[in-house]
């Protein structure tokens, strides 16, 4: 994920932003997810390294980094990396979020947070997380949170962390 890929991410993100959106229901739907569903989802990935991407259509850096995360997952999935995307969009943005995540080729199912309280949801994932996006969370093969990347993350830092976990 070098500078060229970073620029490509922004171009793809901007292209999506201005691309004509189809009317009506998006071809893919997002799976609602709350605290309990999040815990079950993480447990279902035990035995693999899990990268969870919290993003939103209103978050420009999230849109820009999505192609890089998909490229990273494509390159490393055979070594044991899984990628899960969770949209933090409001319900009215769900069709656009579904379209974007599908367009990016992110692995299914795609999730959207559907919770009674953002406070409880955010704290259940990482009490040190304020809710700032983008936010990436790395879980080890036992389903334990090992690293959080809040805000714009240096792709090399993320790649190094994942490579280290895949190597152990």
């Amino acid at each position, binding site marked *: 994920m070098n500078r060229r890929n970073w620029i490509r991410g922004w171009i793809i993100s901007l292209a999506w932003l201005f691309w004509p959106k189809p009317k009506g229901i998006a071809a893919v739907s997002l799976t609602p997810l709350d605290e309990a569903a999040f815990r079950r989802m993480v447990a279902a990935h035990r035995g693999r390294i899990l990268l969870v991407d919290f993003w939103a259509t209103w978050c420009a850096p999230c849109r820009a980094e999505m192609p890089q995360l998909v490229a990273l997952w494509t390159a490393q999935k055979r070594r044991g990396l899984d990628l899960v995307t969770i949209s933090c969009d409001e319900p009215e943005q769900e069709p656009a979020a579904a379209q974007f995540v599908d367009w990016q080729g992110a692995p299914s199912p795609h999730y959207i947070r559907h919770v009674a309280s*953002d*406070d409880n949801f955010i704290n259940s994932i990482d009490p040190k997380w304020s809710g700032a996006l983008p936010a990436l969370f790395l879980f080890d093969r036992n389903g334990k949170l090992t690293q959080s990347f809040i*805000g714009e993350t240096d792709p090399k830092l993320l790649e190094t962390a994942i490579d280290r976990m895949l190597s152990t």
Partner: protein
Amino acid sequence: MKHCLVAFLFSALVAASSVYGQEFKVSSPVAGFSVTQLDGAPAHFDNVKGNVTLVMFISVQCPVSNAYDDRMNALYQDYVPKGVKFIVLNANRTELAAAVQEHAREHSFQFTVYKDENNVVADRFGATVTPETYLIDSAGVLRYHGSIDDAQNVSRVTTRRLRLALDAVLAGKEPPQAETKAFGCSIKRAPKGT
């Protein structure tokens, strides 16, 4: 073994409190800090604070922050007459003073917006997201930290968290919730060492 446990607990405590070198915490006093006016002149907390002071981190480009622009103006209209002073800050390295000024004009902000150069004040408060608010009482103690309310879309708001905290602090009481969280845009920090 006991020493190891103490050392571990201490380091965990340090790690938990070291979000960008966070210095100001809920229930603790807020020491003086300086902000920059949009014309470049400095302003000190002691000169702009009120009996109760609301510190609010906002953004020019963040759609979540912008979704709250009308609510921020309404807060200003409702609480300035009650003696609350507003210190509204833009800490994003990507948003220069001219853009902040233009944004304030476009959205008819009634409050002054300051620049937090190199996010020094954001670091001291541990602010990471926009919008994010901090409420300081008459004794200079931080009483509330968190979101303005519980929904980006105003039609879905059920708890006006900041207003509840403001009303409580103005009445000399504890806010119903001292800390809250919400999704928003990360503050675009300056690289360390600049």
